[in-house]
């Protein structure tokens, strides 16, 4: 008896009881759709983390000024700039694990050019800023040493600023006014896209010295800076360096080991880990649901197949009387349970795709459809069908022809 004949006979009997077949496969449907969703959430999170690293650079620590609370009263985040360029030089000297540090001062201000005006964040920094933040140039160049040293009025702008001031025209060599001070645009950065909370391309970057002299002289007097991005030589050293930076900074600022620091160190890897962890928890939850419903689904299939075998005892007897071997009967019932689970698998895949689409649209979660997960679902559901269908099928095959024929 060929496989096509077996499939033909099986679909005949499944179709004669179509509602029951579908209800039976419900467990498989839920299980398979959970598997697909789970895998897609997991790989979505992984891809998102990779993209974030791509965007913000890996192995970076960010040190920011923080007003130390004064007798329990916080002075507000922007009130004091406690970091200085001296801190930066000291860190570089003391900690060989640090590869580079980019200092940063910033302000939010009106930019005027071309008869348009636009509110953007202006950053004063050095060329390290571009390497550490994974910034690429679409056009133009970074700062010359001479421009950094002399405080030239040159600026590099992001895509959003270009769009709002120049539309699609090239901004290179154009003059923009930042806080009424004219700057020449020398570079255009590649788009990075937005995060959930900020448009990274809405940025103007000028030399640190220029910013301090012409834009933020009052806000950041002397060698005060807002923050610094520290690039660590390797990811293994990241957490150790975070501690070392803390120690050195406390020493520089004369703050005891358990005193309130006037700076805060952000480790971006921490955030990424948290993101990965939460999607891992979600995946474990879904895997549990998937596992349980696949087992329950399998038991459901076994149950229905046992009922089917009992209902069709006489039929089995007839088949045996016309020459069906044990193997033929076994295969027929196995194929039937396999078909139930595969149909469940197919519906489950469709449902899973729907859930993935819905979640990514509605919650703006990053989901990535992995084709392996579809293959995996097929393997899962068919093995469930075979494993749980085997006992009923064997029971059918082992029937005594006489007893089966006499069964009413």
């Amino acid at each position, binding site marked *: *008896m060929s496989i096509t004949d077996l499939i033909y006979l099986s679909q005949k009997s499944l179709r004669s009881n179509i509602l029951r077949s579908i209800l039976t496969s419900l467990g498989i449907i839920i299980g398979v759709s959970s598997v697909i969703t789970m895998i897609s959430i997991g790989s979505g999170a992984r891809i998102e983390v990779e993209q974030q690293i791509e965007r913000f650079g890996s192995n970076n620590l960010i040190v920011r000024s923080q007003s130390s609370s004064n007798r329990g009263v916080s002075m507000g985040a922007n009130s004091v700039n406690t970091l200085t360029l001296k801190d930066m030089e000291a860190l570089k000297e003391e900690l060989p694990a640090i590869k580079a540090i980019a200092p940063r001062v910033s302000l939010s201000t009106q930019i005027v050019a071309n008869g348009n005006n636009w509110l953007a964040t202006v950053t004063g920094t050095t060329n390290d800023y571009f390497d550490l933040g994974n910034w690429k140039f679409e056009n133009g160049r970074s700062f010359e040493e001479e421009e950094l040293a002399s405080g030239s009025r040159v600026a590099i702008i992001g895509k959003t600023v270009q769009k709002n001031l120049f539309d699609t025209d090239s901004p290179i060599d154009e003059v923009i006014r930042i806080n009424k001070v004219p700057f020449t645009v020398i570079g255009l950065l590649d788009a990075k896209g937005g995060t959930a909370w900020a448009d990274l391309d809405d940025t103007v970057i000028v030399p640190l010295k220029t910013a301090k002299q012409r834009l933020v002289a009052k806000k950041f007097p002397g060698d005060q800076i807002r923050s610094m991005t520290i690039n660590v030589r390797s990811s293994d050293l990241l957490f150790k360096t975070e501690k070392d930076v803390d120690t050195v900074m406390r020493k520089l600022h004369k703050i005891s080991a358990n005193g309130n620091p006037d700076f805060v160190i952000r480790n971006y890897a921490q955030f990424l880990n948290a993101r990965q962890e939460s999607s891992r928890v979600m995946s474990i939850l879904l895997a549990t649901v998937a596992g349980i419903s696949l087992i329950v689904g399998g038991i459901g299939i076994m149950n229905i197949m046992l009922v089917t075998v009992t209902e069709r005892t006489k039929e089995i007897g007839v088949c045996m009387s016309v*020459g069906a*071997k044990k193997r033929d009967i076994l295969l027929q019932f196995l194929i039937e349970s396999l078909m139930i689970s595969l149909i469940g698998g197919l519906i489950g895949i469709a449902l899973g795709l729907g859930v993935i689409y819905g979640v990514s649209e509605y919650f703006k979660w990053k989901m990535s459809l992995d084709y392996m997960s579809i293959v995996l679902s097929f393997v899962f559901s068919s093995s469930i069908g075979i494993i749980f269908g085997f006992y009923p099928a064997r029971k059918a095959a082992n029937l005594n022809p*006489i007893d089966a024929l006499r069964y009413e």
Partner: protein
Amino acid sequence: MININSLSKEYIMGDNKLLALDNIDLSINEGDFVSIMGSSGSGKSTLMNIIGCLDVPSSGEYHFRDNNVSTLNSNKLAELRNKDIGFVFQNFNLLPRLNAQENVVLPLLYSGKNLKERNQLAIDALESVGLKDRVHHRPNQLSGGQQQRVSIARAIAGSPKLILADEPTGALDSKTGLEIMKILNDLNAKGITIVLVTHEDDIANYGSRIIKMKDGKILEDKKNVNN
């Protein structure tokens, strides 16, 4: 064709042993039309099941053609039923989900004939029992007589040597029953051996030899003078 030597069959039901067949000797030649008669519990159905290789004896020997049936495993028995034996049952035993043609094809499926060949054989068999225009009807769309003819077609589709008919007219009115008996008679005329189980005298009279059974023993075995 059939050689049975001191064959017994006993069933164990709880604590009781039931001797369904008690030391039977019987031989049937190729081309015979044998009617087995007896009341219920006489052992006629048990004998028929053993002849049909559905059941195996508890003791004694049964030779079917060149096979010592008592020694065969279930696969070999299935093969014999498939190739050499056709069954016709009192209540037809057709599969309700399959149409007439598919029912007739069933034994051919198990013998591994290809699609074209088995469909042709099934249509030929249905035509020979006069159901050429009913091939796509399901059992519940057919009358009792037609259903029994489908089951005869199923029995003969694989060109068996032996047809076992267990009260083939039991569920039919007498006119339809006679039609069925005529078909069996024609098959016998073509050389197929027929063993018929019945408790009706006029049905048994179609046989060329009548065996009467009682309490698991053969009471009487004689040529049918009326035939």
